[in-house]
């Protein structure tokens, strides 16, 4: 009897335990589907296929940027066996202490697992990679992953092309998870503006892996895989030869050059000096080089042509000549006398000696200060307008139509607006209705509060060359597989000055080069129209400025050159512009070897450094 009860109790216990296990199985296998996901995480490895980044070429299809393999060393800690640490450290080029420190660092990283690969050393040199491959079997648990990085064929145009770098946490967040830690992205220049086109689209491959992360074949024979789409080839508008020549001329100088094809708005060359070798931003020293450049007092990373504003100096007189005519206060025959300057009600603006009185065309040629103070006065004090303020606003409107005091919309990152004061700006200083032409007279000769970027100067030159319109300057000419990639770069932006007012001004500019202040820029056989400028610089020696276009009829190139702290426009800026025009139009730059020599050897950088920081401060406005 008792034994029967005991037997039943025992069988009861067996069934009870079995019941508990069945309930547990129900929970695990039927009611909880998270284990299916865990199991997938275990065996499914998502491998990213990186597309080749798009190539960059110049307007003549000369290759500028291509891709080069880089080699990252990975380690799977669990698979490291019988490692000869000494020979390993020798090959990689690190000390034993560092080897240990690396492992400690890897262990602290997010997502670390002993059976998963972690990056051990980024971007091995090709030599190290070759040595490593030879000894691969001695270094179990280590392997090299090949990625591509940028390689620059020429050491030019660094600011235009920009550079790529690893994405930051913030970029990853903003990209909706497209970018992953370690991915490259365009940080500046064309690499940044055209990231979408150049970057291509990453592909994904799903691979089954075992517990040691060893590949066990495709998942569902590649049903969910996507192929990578390579980045698009892009043709820049720049002419590599012109760019290279210009950079040589600008060596050891602080300043900018912008050259534009007037009838298309294509930027033929854009130089920011001092520049740097774009190859510095490749490879594992990338970060160090960046810090060095950042700390350089000449600010090589600052993209001067599109961001630094300068007082335009005398080249502004050309603009005022056009606006004065449009406002009907100036005619080609208008003549003003100049007795060594502008004297009006106790105000004096100096001028150099020249014949007097002069009509408009000649006044441009000799760059008479007195003449253009009168022009400015008549424009701002124009009785046609009820108030000075209204007349000044009209002037502002004209200037804006020339592309001044605003962003033009170039396809490059960090474009500046420059600075043209509004009427309210003077209201703040002098009080409403308490200022007039004479109060702001220095504006008439391009001095004072004005700030124009070299890009805006070159654009204004192109506008004059076109006799009244400009096309927004841009840097990309062609994108592979895209017809008319940027329709906004086909639009003619007409300025507020009629075409009929241009010839007299252009004739004056031709005279400037043929027998005026920029005689040094004259090239036999090419009709160059230009104007020198000398921007007063409160912090040191004046900036040398020149803008020009050529040939006079059917112009092919419009150029603006600024050389900081270099003195008269004729000394440095005009020769550089002239040489670059010659190079572009005739493909020759050896007709004036002495001049080339003098430009290349001119070292103006030491004088500039002291003043540079001050200049850049004003540029932030």
């Amino acid at each position, binding site marked *: 009897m008792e*034994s*029967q009860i*005991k*037997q039943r*109790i*025992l*069988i009861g216990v*067996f*069934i009870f*335990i*079995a019941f*508990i*296990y*069945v309930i*547990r*199985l*129900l929970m*695990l*296998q*039927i009611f*909880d*589907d*998270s*284990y*299916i996901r*865990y*199991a997938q995480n*275990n*065996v499914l490895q998502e491998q990213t296929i990186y597309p080749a980044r798009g190539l960059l070429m110049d307007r003549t299809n000369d290759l500028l940027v291509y891709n080069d393999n880089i080699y990252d060393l990975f380690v799977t800690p669990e698979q490291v066996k019988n490692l000869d640490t000494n020979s390993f450290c020798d090959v990689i080029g690190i000390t034993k202490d560092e080897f240990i420190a690396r492992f400690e660092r890897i262990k602290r990283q997010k997502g670390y*697992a*002993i059976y998963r690969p972690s990056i051990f050393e980024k971007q091995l040199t090709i030599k190290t990679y070759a040595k490593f491959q030879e000894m691969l079997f001695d270094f179990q648990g280590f392997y090299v992953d090949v990625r591509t990085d940028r390689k620059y064929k020429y050491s030019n145009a660094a600011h235009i092309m920009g550079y790529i770098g690893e994405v930051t946490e913030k970029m990853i967040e903003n990209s909706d998870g497209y970018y992953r830690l370690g991915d490259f992205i365009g940080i500046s220049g064309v690499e940044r503006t055209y990231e979408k086109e150049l970057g291509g689209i990453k592909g994904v491959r799903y691979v*089954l*892996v*075992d*517990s*040691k992360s060893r590949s*066990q074949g495709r998942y569902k024979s590649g049903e969910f895989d996507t192929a990578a789409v390579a980045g698009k080839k892009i043709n820049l508008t720049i002419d590599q030869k012109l760019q290279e020549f210009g950079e040589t001329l600008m060596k050891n100088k602080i300043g900018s050059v912008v050259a534009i094809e007037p009838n298309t708005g294509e930027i033929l060359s854009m130089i920011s000096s001092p520049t740097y070798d774009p190859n510095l931003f490749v490879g594992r020293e990338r970060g160090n080089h960046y810090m060095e450049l950042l700390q350089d007092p000449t600010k090589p990373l600052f993209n001067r042509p599109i961001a630094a504003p300068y007082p335009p100096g005398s080249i502004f007189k050309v603009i005022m000549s056009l606006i004065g005519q449009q406002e009907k206060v100036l005619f080609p025959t208008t003549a003003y006398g100049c007795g060594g300057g502008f004297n009006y009600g106790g105000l004096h603006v100096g001028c150099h000696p020249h014949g007097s009185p002069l009509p408009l065309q000649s006044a441009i040629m000799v760059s008479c200060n007195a003449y253009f103070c009168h022009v400015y006065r008549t424009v701002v004090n124009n009785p046609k307008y009820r108030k000075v303020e209204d007349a000044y606003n009209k002037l502002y409107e004209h200037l804006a139509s020339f592309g001044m005091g605003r962003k033009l919309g170039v396809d490059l990152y960090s474009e500046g607006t420059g600075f043209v004061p509004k009427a309210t700006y003077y209201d703040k200083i002098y009080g409403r209705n308490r200022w007039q032409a004479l109060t702001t007279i220095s504006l008439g000769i391009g001095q004072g509060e004005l700030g124009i970027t070299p890009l805006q100067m070159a654009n204004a030159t192109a506008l004059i060359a076109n006799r009244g319109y400009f096309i927004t300057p841009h840097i990309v000419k062609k994108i592979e597989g895209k017809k008319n990639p940027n329709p906004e770069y086909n639009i003619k932006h007409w300025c507020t000055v009629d075409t009929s007012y241009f010839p007299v001004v252009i004739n004056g500019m031709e005279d400037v080069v043929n027998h005026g202040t920029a005689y040094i820029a004259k090239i036999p056989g090419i009709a160059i129209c230009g104007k020198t400028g000398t921007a007063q610089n409160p912090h040191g020696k004046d900036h040398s400025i020149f803008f020009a276009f050529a040939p006079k009829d059917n112009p092919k190139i419009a150029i603006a050159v600024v050389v900081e702290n270099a003195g008269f426009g004729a000394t440095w800026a005009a020769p550089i512009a002239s040489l670059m025009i010659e190079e572009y139009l005739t493909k020759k730059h050896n007709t004036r070897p002495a001049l080339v020599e003098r430009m290349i050897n001119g070292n103006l950088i030491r004088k500039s450094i002291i003043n540079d920081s001050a200049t850049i401060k004003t540029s932030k406005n």
Partner: protein
Amino acid sequence: MTQQQLKPARIDWLTIMLYIVFVIGGLLCIYASVYKETNPYIYDMNMNYGKQLLWIVISAFIAMLILLVDEKLFYAFAYGFYGLTIILLLATFVIGTEIKGSSSWIRVGSFQIQPAEFAKFGVALALAKYLSGYNIDFKNWKVKAISFLIILLPMAIILLQNETGSALVFASFAIVLYREGLPGWLLVIGVLLIVLTIVALLLKPLYIIISLIVIASAFLFLVRRTQLLIFLTFGIVLFSSAYVSSIDYIFENVMQAHQRTRINVLLGKEVDLKGAGYNVQQSLIAIGSGGAFGKGYLEGTQNKFRFVPEQSTDFIFCTIGEEFGFLGSFIFITLYIVLLWRLTIMAERQRSKFNRIYGYSLVAILFFHFLINIGMTLGLMPVIGIPLPFISYGGSALLSFTILLFIFIRLDANRVNELKNFE
């Protein structure tokens, strides 16, 4: 003994059928757990399944041998078997080979033998013989003491070999002693103490004491209170509180840091991603991802790609769970319970006390393995490395379980001829 007419032996075919199903099923699971498309031959002697196939053949041969010999042999040589296993156990200290940190193996050619596996049936035979002897009354304290000694001797040696799992299996003989007269409340108290110990290690003692007082108060509020009951309840609460506190004290102050870590990992308080915690997590993933009907034979990614550790030995149930799903697991558990039930009935129908005690030993050992092994893969039991009988890879285990089972089938087959001659 008087000469009598022997009736023909009646072998219990149901048990043998179940045995065959388990062994063949086990082989298929081992095959699945190390399956590679490049090497699909089940008789490959370099692979686990090839070796297991060989062990199955050997086991079948031994099983037939057992069915042919005179069943009195087992009675006669019971102590001899017991002595032999003890000697083999001791021999491992001298000629043992260390495998995975345990020195419990003896190498024979390319195979290893684990004497600990055979010690189980040594104990089963010796205990059965001792308790079925003349004038042996289990109520006698001396008999109890000797019974315990028979069980504890090999258990202690195996513990010294660092094979905690195999040693714990001997605790299952408590079931046999229960059937033979050990009071049930002693067993219940033993189980309760184990549960209390685990709870004490998992929770802060204060919480446990508060819950005990609440439960006791609720209990006294609900039932008719007698003075004895109140005193008894108070006593139990007082004792439990003291016990829990002292366990906590020992754990915090007496034990070393590494011992604490080991216990924490065992209880799942700490996740050791390389050790036991990782094993259980991967085991749950494999079983859980099997779903209702499984991924299909040879399609289980978790087993195939080695995420489950010890997948052909201790965690073989993962293969069943992943590839055959809930349905397969349910059928397996049901079949296993049917076997235990069948064996219990068979044990009870024995006329001889020797046969009955031996039968219960078999049931107890099989049940204990089932309880711990399946519980471990389901994350309900601590990770104690013991195989799933007839299924797990391992020659020693298969052979010893086969011998254990077939001796009983042999004894049962001849039960009709048994007088109570051994009593």
